[in-house]
C-alpha cells in the first residue's frame, strides 16, 4: 500500500533536516499511482500533486514521526482541506417550504436518497412532502410512494409532466402545511440535451432552495464531466455521494469537489432508508489514499 511504498522512498532520509526535493518527487509519483487507482480524475490528480508539492517542500523533518508518516500526513491534510473541512447542512428557505431538488445520472440513487433525506428531515421535526417527478422510468413514482409510506411521509405523484407534478406538489405542500418538499427527478446523462433543458426549466419555475447532485461513489474518470456539466447548467448547491458502502476508493469525491467547488453534504451508506450520514472528509480522505 501507499504507506509501505513511501517508507521505502524516505528511509534514506536519516539525518536530513528537510524533506528533500528529490524524495518528494519520488513520493509524489507513488501518490499519483494511488490516486489514479482510486479513480481520481487524471487532471485533478495533476492539480492535487502541485498543491501537495508546495506544502511538502521546505518542510523540516520531524523527530516524532517517520518521514513517510510525515509525508502521508501532509497529503492527507491536503485531501481533507480540499474535500471540505466540515459537514455543511441544508439551507432553510426564508419562506417555507424549503425545496430540495435531486438530480443526477441514471441509477445513481436519487429516488432512494430522496426518501433518506425525507427521514432525516422528518426526524428533525420538519413536515416533509416527497414529489415524484419521474414520469419515464417504469414504476418510478410507485417506488418513491412505497418509500414514503415506509417512513410515514406523504408522496405527491399526480401530473402528466415532471414540471406539472412539481408545481402541483408545491401547491399541495402549502395546503398540507409542509415546510420541506423533496423533488425526485428522472435520471439523465449530462449529455442528454433535452433532459438537461428540462431541468433548467424546472429550476427556473420551481426556484428550489438547493439543487443537489446525487452521484455514485464508484464513478470513474467521468465524474469530472458529470459534475461540471450539471454544475454549469444548474449551479449546484451540493453533492450527495451514494453507495459509499461499496469497496470503491471513492476518488470521484475529490474530482467532483475540485471541479465544482460544491460541498459534499451527505453520504449514502447502504440500501436501507436509515443509511445516510453527514459527510465528514477525514474518512473519505483515508479511503482514497488506500
Amino acid at each position, binding site marked *: 500500500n501507499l504507506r509501505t511504498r513511501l517508507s521505502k522512498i524516505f528511509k534514506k532520509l536519516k539525518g536530513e533536516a528537510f524533506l528533500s526535493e528529490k524524495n518528494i518527487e519520488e513520493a509524489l509519483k507513488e501518490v499519483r499511482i494511488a490516486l489514479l487507482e482510486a479513480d481520481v480524475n487524471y487532471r485533478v490528480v495533476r492539480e492535487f500533486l502541485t498543491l501537495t508539492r508546495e506544502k511538502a517542500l521546505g518542510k523540516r523533518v520531524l523527530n516524532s514521526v517517520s518521514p513517510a508518516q510525515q509525508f502521508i500526513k501532509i497529503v492527507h491534510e491536503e485531501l481533507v482541506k480540499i474535500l471540505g473541512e466540515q459537514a455543511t447542512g441544508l439551507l432553510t428557505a426564508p419562506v417555507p417550504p424549503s425545496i430540495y431538488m435531486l438530480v443526477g445520472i441514471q441509477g445513481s440513487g436519487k429516488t432512494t436518497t430522496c426518501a433518506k433525506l425525507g427521514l432525516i428531515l422528518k426526524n428533525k421535526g420538519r413536515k416533509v412532502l416527497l414529489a415524484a417527478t419521474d414520469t419515464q422510468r417504469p414504476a418510478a413514482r410507485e417506488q418513491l410512494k412505497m418509500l414514503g409510506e415506509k417512513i410515514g411521509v406523504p408522496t405527491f405523484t399526480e401530473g402528466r409532466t415532471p414540471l406539472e407534478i412539481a408545481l402541483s406538489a408545491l401547491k399541495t405542500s402549502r395546503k398540507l402545511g409542509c415546510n420541506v418538499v423533496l423533488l425526485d427527478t428522472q435520471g439523465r446523462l449530462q449529455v442528454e440535451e433535452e433532459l438537461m433543458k428540462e431541468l433548467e426549466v424546472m429550476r427556473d419555475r420551481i426556484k428550489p432552495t438547493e439543487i443537489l447532485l446525487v452521484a455514485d461513489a*464508484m464513478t470513474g474518470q467521468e465524474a469530472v464531466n458529470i459534475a461540471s456539466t450539471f454544475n454549469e447548467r444548474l449551479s449546484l448547491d451540493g453533492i450527495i455521494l451514494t453507495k459509499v458502502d*461499496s469497496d470503491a476508493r471513492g476518488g470521484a469525491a475529490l474530482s467532483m469537489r475540485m471541479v465544482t467547488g460544491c460541498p459534499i453534504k451527505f453520504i449514502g451508506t447502504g440500501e436501507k432508508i436509515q443509511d445516510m450520514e453527514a459527510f465528514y472528509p477525514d474518512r473519505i480522505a483515508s479511503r482514497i489514499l488506500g
Partner: protein
Amino acid sequence: SSRLGKGKDHSWEEIEEMLIQSDMGIQTVDILIEKLKKRKGANIQEILKEEILALFPPLNREPIISPSPPTVILMVGVNGVGKTTTIGKLASSFIKEGKKVLLSASDTYRAAAIEQLGLIARTVGADMVKHQYGADPTAVTFDALQSALARKYDFLIIDTAGRMHSDKNLMEELKKIKRVLSTKFNYSPLLPPQEVIMVLDAHVGQNSFQQAHVFHKALNVTGIVLTKLDGTAKGGIILQIERELEIPVKWVGVGEKWDDLVKFSPRDYVESIFL
C-alpha cells in the same frame, strides 16, 4: 472526445491522459504505452486503435442457448447498473425472434422492483412469475423454473436485487438462487443457468474489476453487459476484466429504450473510444 489526430504530434502524456480517462486503469495503460513506444508511424490514432484491439482476448461472445428449452439466464450485478432494464431489452429481442419469454421477479427486496419488471414484461410481451415483497428470492426462482418447464418457454430470465459484492450474505443468497436453477436438471449436460450475465455500468471506475472478480468467483459469470455507453464513459476497465478473468462482454447498453442493446464487438468498441 479524443484529441489524437492523424499526423498530429502528441506527447506521451496526452496519450496517457486519454487512455486513463477511458477508465482502462494504470496497468492496462502502461502495457499500451510500452507497445506504442515500440512502433513507428505517423498516424498515432490508427496505431493506438490496432494495439487496443490486439489486447482483446479471443473469447466466445455468442449467447449460450440450451439444446432443450428453456435457456435460463441469471442477471446479476451491483445496485443501479441496469439489470432490470437490460432484461427488458434481451426479452424484447428474443420475442421479436418469435420466442416465448418468462421473467422471474426474484428481486423481492427493492421498492417497486416487482412493479417495474411487471410493466416491462407487459410492454415487451413477456410473461412474469412473482411472489410478494419479502418472499424468499430462491422460492420465486424455483416457482418460475417450474412454470418455464411446464409451459415450455424458450427463455427464462431471472431478475435479482442489486447487491454489493462485499456483502457476504447477499452473495450467498445469489449462490442459492443459482443452485436452485439446476435442481430439476441433474441429467442435463448444460445445467441451468446456461448464462450468468453480469451487468456493469460504464460510468463505474476501477471497482468494476473487483465486482467482476468477486461475482465470478461466486457464480462463474458467463458474460457481461456493459451499460450506459450512450454516455461519455468508455468502460475501459473491461479490457482488464477480459484479459485477467476471461469473461466476454457480450452486449452493450446504449440507451433506455427496449432496442438499445447491441452485440459487443471489440472493433466497434475501439472505434467508439475515439469518438
